[in-house]
């Protein structure tokens, strides 16, 4: 399409001049066809104008302010709301963590835990009789342990 159409189309469509374009259109068939289509579509826009004045419903402004205040309070509360997606992710992460800890504990050998046997028999057994101690304090300590043991 020729430049003249771009330049004068609006004036031509609104019927306010566009003389240069008018004379161009008499000679250029291609532009004439396209401008005619544009003119047809331009005519259809009139159907988008409200035919009769539209009355604003009574109390519209009050309902609007209620609606706005409602939205404002909701957006304030949403600060504290937890996103359901985030909750699901958190639960899944906790489960995985739990499973990893459980797996680690299950793979540990049971005998790695030291027995806490403080019975006199155990104390005696751990005492090396083949190497008698000359330390009197050590001997006294052992006697005290044996004397204070009640079955």
């Amino acid at each position, binding site marked *: *399409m020729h430049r003249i*159409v*771009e*330049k004068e*189309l*609006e004036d031509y469509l*609104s019927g306010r001049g566009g003389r240069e374009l008018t004379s161009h259109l008499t000679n250029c068939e291609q532009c004439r066809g*396209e401008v005619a*289509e*544009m003119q*047809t*579509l*331009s*005519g*259809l*826009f*009139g*159907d*988008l*104008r*409200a*035919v009769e*004045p*539209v*009355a*604003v*419903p009574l109390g*519209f*402004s009050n*309902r*609007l*302010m209620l*609606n*706005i205040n409602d*939205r404002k309070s909701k957006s304030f509360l949403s600060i504290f709301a937890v996103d359901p997606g985030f909750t699901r992710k958190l639960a899944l992460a906790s489960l995985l963590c739990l499973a990893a800890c459980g797996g680690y504990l299950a793979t540990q050998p049971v005998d790695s835990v030291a027995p806490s046997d403080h019975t006199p028999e155990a104390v005696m057994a751990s005492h090396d009789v083949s190497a008698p101690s000359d330390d009197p304090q050590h001997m006294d300590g052992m006697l005290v342990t044996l004397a204070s043991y009640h079955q």
Partner: protein
Amino acid sequence: MDYQSTEEGALVSRAQSGDDDAFQEIVQKYQSKVFSIIHGIVRQRNDVEDIAQQVFSKVYFSIRNFDYRSSLITWIYKITVNECFDYLRKKKVRKLVYESDLSEDEVRRVENTEPATDRAPRTDVRLAGQDYIVKLLAKVSEEERNLLMLKEVEGYSVEELAQMTSLNENTIKVKLFRARQKLVKAAQRLDRSPGTVA
């Protein structure tokens, strides 16, 4: 005169600083216009108020972003038109009336935009025309749609549009021309697509 220092500019400033009375003044001033625009595009009377509520809620929550580069009504107009097209896209309430409700004669008249004769109800042709142009407008960009609506429906001149949008007249002319070209192409595609008559 700088728009910000006008009476309306002062009203907007008050609304931007959180003055609800100023916002209500804006609603009172433009509610009737907003209802007319919505009714022209959407047509479903029951939904007009819902869309208007949505429009003014958007105005309320985003008025701080209003930068005074255009007039308030241009800004509200843009929000309103976008809201209408969003509504139509989401709900798909518009059913094509061409094949089901119109006779071949009426369809032909819509195609050629001939004046309706007494035989056909004028309103049906008007509704079909409305549907058709709304479908085409959905195919162009938001900016192009708003410019076309302001020019063709509201009747603003190129000079006025240039003032309202802070663009120069030549830019407006080029944008309108390209928008019209896209409309023509969309119309050709729509006419060729199976199942549509218009």
